[in-house]
């Protein structure tokens, strides 16, 4: 599919408050970590370009609030997403257990054409924090991802810039192929519609 490229890939980042969504995005976009980022209220997005194989893709990364109730008014930006990133804090099992709810919430709100194939990527953040007996094991996370539609899984540290580039590259690729399949679908359905229309029109009048 090389004919029509979507100008912008839209990526929505979800997860409990404090897992490091803002820090991840800023690390990826600005290559820095700061302890001064405030708790996100409302929503904002950041852009970054990325070379994927032979073409440049432009990503619009949507940073959202982890505070659940703030989501209810701001779901407008879920729509039209090409990929959804689910983030948790590897040291916080609760934030891991919440992933399923975030995923479902996204599917309900974004209402993608095909929920079965819509790409999610799971990111376990804050791997720089060591010896924590509560830590969610990599195994457990991988098992969860496999069981839920084979979601790609990455472990990162926004603080130490570990795994961030790699995760976003896969996120970009997934978003890109999602956008292309949507494109394809649109062309396909358009063709059908035209066909039907010309079939119907004589008897409509």
């Amino acid at each position, binding site marked *: 599919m090389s004919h029509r490229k979507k100008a912008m890939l839209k990526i929505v980042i979800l997860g409990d*408050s404090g897992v490091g969504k803002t820090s991840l995005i800023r690390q990826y976009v600005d290559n820095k970590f700061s302890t001064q980022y405030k*708790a996100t209220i*409302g*929503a904002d*997005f950041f*852009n970054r370009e990325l070379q994927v194989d032979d073409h440049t893709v432009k990503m*619009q990364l949507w940073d959202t609030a982890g505070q*659940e109730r703030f989501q209810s*008014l701001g779901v407008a930006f879920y729509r039209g997403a090409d990929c959804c990133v689910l983030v948790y804090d590897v040291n916080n099992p*609760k934030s891991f257990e919440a992933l399923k709810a975030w995923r479902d919430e996204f599917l309900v709100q974004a209402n993608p054409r095909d929920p079965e194939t819509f790409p999610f990527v799971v990111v376990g953040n804050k791997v720089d924090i060591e010896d924590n007996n509560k830590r969610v094991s990599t195994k457990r996370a991988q098992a969860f991802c496999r069981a839920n539609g084979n979601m790609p899984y990455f472990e990162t540290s926004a603080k130490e810039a570990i795994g961030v580039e790699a995760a976003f590259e896969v996120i970009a690729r997934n978003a890109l192929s999602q956008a292309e399949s949507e494109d394809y679908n649109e062309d396909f359905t358009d063709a059908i519609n035209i066909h039907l229309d010309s079939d119907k029109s004589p008897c409509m009048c």
Partner: protein
Amino acid sequence: MTSKAKLLYSKSKVYVHPTPNSKDNIPGFVGLVRPSHAEDSGILVAWVPEDDLKVNHDYDQYVKVDLDENLVLKEALVSTPPPSSFSSYGFSVPIRDIYSIYYKRPSLGWWWGSITINTRGSETLPAIFFHDSESPSTKNEQKKRNKDFDPFSNDGNLYWGGDTFLLYLEKYAKLVNPSGSNNIFLVNPTQEDLDLYSNSNNKVAAKDEEDPFVKVFNDVKWKVLSKLASVTKFSRNTAQQLFDSTPPKVKTLLNIPEVQKVNDDFGSAKVYLAKWALGIAEEAQRSKRKSVYNEGYRKFLKGELGDFELLSIDFESERRNPIGIKEWNAFFDPIGHLVLTVEEVKERIFHGGLQPEVRPQAWLFLLEIIPWVSTDKERKKILNQKRHEYNDLKKLWWDDLENKNHDEFWLDQKSRIEKDVHRTDRSVSFFAEAEVSHPDPNSRFAETGTNAHLEQMKDMLITYNEYNKNLGYIQGMSDLLSPLYVVFQDDAVAFAAFCKFMDRMERNFIRDQSGMRDQLLTIDHLVQLMLPQLYEHLAQADSTHFFFFFRMILVWFKREFAWDDVLTLWEVLWTNYYSSDFVLFVALAILDKHKDIIMTHLNQFDEILKYMNELSMTMDLKDILERAEIQFLNFRKAIDMVDRKRQDMSSSTFLASGSTDYSLTDTEGSKAAKQKLTDHELPNITRDLRNLLSKEIVIVKEVERDPDVGGG
């Protein structure tokens, strides 16, 4: 010395508005003056400043003729007004030299009607504005008409001061209203004039002499901006190419580092430049205000005639100096009784704000921790009591930590609070240092360290989480607490203040978000009424959910203004001086200020959201507050006008059909009937809008918390 002439007609309180600032308005009279022996076409249409009339002693004559309804005065001799004068905006022009009159009646967006005269020499004289509410003769006439249930003039519009001017002018000249325009009258037009007019409407749009700077800028602005828009990456190279075809003034513009640095976040160097242009326009406006007699004023006047929605200048708003400790102390007598009325103090705070050293005292009153009417002694007692209360509340959970440490909700909330406190206002010196090692070695902040103030913040928020059990701690609250803590420098008092503040803020945080929804909806109605063109644009851009105001409203612009400005803004809002929801007018003012850029450049929800988010820390609070006040005053007037008009309509239907009075209710049932009535398309004043006139704070409490539900 000029010879005496006969004053045929005069109208008082007609102003020239040389700048957008109403302070600069010049009051005067408009008159029809017949020089001795002049025929009708030699009658002068004149506007004379009041001050000039006082100097040459004609003032009384103009007043007399103005108030003389039937013009029974045989003689009102005045000196012949000069054609123009260097010292003022005054002018006079014989009817035969007038080509056209542009007639703009008052309307929802523009309270004063105005008249602009174009001469046959293609000169545009300053627009003159009829301040009807100040003119005794106009008020008399309006009263009379209201009494007769006929507030309308012959053309079916509401009567205003300009009506009689045209009426009298028509006695001496032929006024032709060319087809296709109901705002233009050609004066004694020849056939050629009429033909010309229909061929090109441009003739009336007279050329003005603009401020050369503004002119250069206006000419090239959009050309440059659109070129930039087509350049995908705004590199040094392309900028250089642009330079070579660009006038010097704009070159300076492009050299500004911020512009150079522009990285096209959403492909929009143009937006940055437009924003910058807004700053320049304001600067130009400011410098214009300084000198009354400059050439640029016509530029403004032209803008006024062209745009219905421009910032209205009839209401004045000017920020005053913040209240210092001396002034504050003078508000009280020796035992601490307030010697002013509460309203007076609030008015003063609303318009000026407070100096830092006044805040610890004044905020206690504003947040109603202590009553305005009390003595020093009583206040001390109340504060002591607050300290006890806080300690007791804190002790409740402090002494129960054993149990609490097994309560999952509590633990969740505690770590949420901890996380957020460490992310709140860390650039403020109070919270910046992290010199103390963490009291809890297992805390995730053990590594990063903490300080006494951060720990106090946590305690206050945990206490609040316990105190207001149903609501609990929600993100954003730490943003609301930190200014209180820093100002009072006393955790118990800050806590008391926070509880009071939260009374009115609770609706922003409740789980179902209905409080936020209501406010965003009210903004929706407000923008429909006050900025209809912008509203249409936002609707096309899928942005009428006004989500970009979510953060601004939730924490009262805490994230949008610098620390000191936030303190000022909050104390202004706490006065409830005009409305307990004045915060929504602050939002409206921001939209008003940026509407041109939004309408010209931003067509998508994401673009608008980004633009609004990036206003953060760039906004001039003083300007926004002045605009907000003007927006409020305009709003109040709009409601008043719509109500009155509706009442007039209903009373006329009442007389006609004997039906009952339904015009003021907003219920569904009356809709059909109302539609029949309002072919004038009066805006619907929703209850949301009407509530904005109230000074009572809105309190909405969270419902009881289901123990199974977390704090999300």
